[in-house]
């Protein structure tokens, strides 16, 4: 087929014709100018687009994503994960009950992301008790950490410094977001790691 000026408009419907159009535009100044304008419009168009609210879109995307074959993530069951799952279920159950009891006063559904006042109190008490236990262990391990110059003790020392720094950071974040379940679980995990590290140091010392 020989491409002519009148075919140019059809390029918008049949993109495959664009190669012929470009070839034709080499010798045709009018079409060349037309194609240049199209190209400029295309470049500018994307930046002219605005963002828009799409509250109805995500549920559709979610449904499509859910329909895709799922890959099994590799997860290890540990007490934190189990704790989180159990906490989620129980918080959700408690939340559902609470919602049921007070459904005459509409409000948002309670979220498993947050602890209740009572849970928080108990968590904070448990944390204090955890911290006291760690303090006792620290006193027991301190002479070994300070006196021994072995590479292993140096590594433990470094790990404890790292954990202390992370605990301080986490506490600062928890201070601003006390009911956030994720933060409380992470803080508990850090305490656990510190406790285990100190226990290892004491155990090794006892072995020697």
């Amino acid at each position: 087929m020989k491409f002519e000026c009148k075919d140019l408009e059809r390029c918008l419907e049949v993109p495959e014709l664009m190669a012929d159009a470009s070839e034709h535009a080499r010798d045709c100044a009018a079409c060349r100018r037309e194609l240049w304008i199209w190209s400029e419009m295309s470049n500018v168009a994307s930046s002219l687009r605005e963002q828009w609210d799409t509250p109805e879109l995500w549920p559709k995307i979610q449904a499509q994503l859910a329909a895709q074959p799922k890959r099994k993530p590799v997860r290890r069951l540990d007490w934190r994960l189990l704790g989180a799952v159990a906490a989620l279920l129980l918080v959700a159950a408690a939340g559902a009950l609470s919602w049921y009891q007070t459904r005459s006063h509409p409000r948002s559904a309670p979220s498993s992301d947050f602890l209740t006042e009572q849970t928080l109190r108990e968590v904070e008490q448990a944390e204090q008790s955890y911290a006291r236990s760690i303090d006792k262990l620290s006193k027991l391990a301190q002479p070994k950490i300070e006196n021994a110059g072995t590479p292993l003790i140096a590594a433990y020392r470094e790990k404890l410094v790292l954990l202390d720094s992370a605990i301080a950071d986490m506490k600062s974040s928890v201070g601003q977001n006390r009911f956030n379940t994720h933060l409380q679980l992470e803080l508990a995990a850090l305490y656990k790691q510190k406790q285990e590290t100190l226990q290892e140091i004491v155990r090794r010392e006892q072995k020697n």
Partner: protein
Amino acid sequence: MNKRTSLCLALFLALPAFGREDYTRNFDKTVTMQAAQRLRVEHKFGDIVVHTHANPELVIHAVIRTSASDAKEARRYAESVRITVEPAGSDMLIETVYPKQEAGGWFGRNVSYSVNFEILMPDSSPLALRNSFGAVSVNDLKASSEIATSHGRLEFRNGRGNQRLENSFAPISVSGIAGELDLSDTNGDIDIADVTGGIDVRDRFGKVTVSRTGGGKIVDGNGAVRANTISGPLNITTSFAPVNANDIKGNLIVHNQNGDIEAIAVKGAAELLTGFALVHFENVAGPVTVHAGNSGIRGHNVQGSAILQNSFAPVDVSEIRKDASVTSQNGNVSLADVGEGVTVKTSFGLVKAERVGGALRVENQNGGVNASSIKGGVNVKTSFSGVNLDAVGGSVEVENQNGSVQVNSTRGKVCEPISIRTSFAPVQVRIPSDGGYTVSAKTSFGNIHSDLPMLVSGLLTQDSVNGKIGSGACPMNLINQNGNIDILK
């Protein structure tokens, strides 16, 4: 009940919800991105899940959740959380901005919050994502990314392009990347699988597991490293934890401290260094070098040569196609089926060598030497222990003190020189009945005996004999003090 259990129980059981009000608000926005425009995400306190599609639209769905002592405050805080989606330089930036909290004032200690994102982005757009206190999951991105998070699990699945991932205090899991991977974690386990390009992995106190990736580097502070099916050279550094490397299709270098090393099926050379732990290698196509202070060495089937150094622990290797050199202290050394020569230096340990294709040279102190089926010559120096040499094809030279020497030379018609010196213990030399030796035997406070007929010349005394056995083609010098000398057939 221990503290951990009580903390868990506190989290699990004490949950009657009273005194708190939660509020949830959704944020949904769609924006068109320019081709190959980078998406930047700055977030904290919540999870981010990223999916991709082939379209230019960026679809953002966020769930803002707040919890406060009353519904009004919860709602007010939720309404104050801002999520901005706007161009920033050449990037498209999504940012979560939380209202400033002031103790005792509005949004004080009683408000808690989280924002979870689900993002659908163009698959060809690069991604720069920063999060903290939340998990991140990125799927099917066909462009490069830089992702950093902390205190939340990081997962990356099915990507194309170079990826740089960083986490602290939480694990990283990566699979299916057609590109290079640069990954670092602090105190979190790392799990990597199916990466076509090279890997550069750093961790401090976490366990690193890598399988089916390109070659590269793994540096861990104090964590176990397990590498399986690596398509190029691999360099591993760690301490106080074991290293397992299996099916490495290139050179393998492992520097460990106080941790076991296991290297199996290495297609190139293996350089293994540790202390106070065991080194085990098997099926190595290139040469093997091991430095293992206070560590045992066990190895099998090396196509190249082996240079092994250790102390205070045994060395036990077999099937070394080329030559083997062992330097040890206070440890037994056992070598079998070595294709070329063997050199052993040790002390206070027994040296055992079997089926050696070349020469055997042993320098020992206070340790015995047992060698058999040695094709080449044997040179042994030791003291205070016995030397037993059986089926030696080449020359024999033994210097011992206070230890017996037994030599069985089987070469038959072709004789090889024999030179033995010891004291306070017997010397026994067994030679073929048709062997030809010029014998010079000397002892003190002992007898000299020969099973084979000997043509004796010179002065005949009880402790000195000079003579010829058969053709007398090879020299046999036997010197003892306070011990017998026996020449047997």
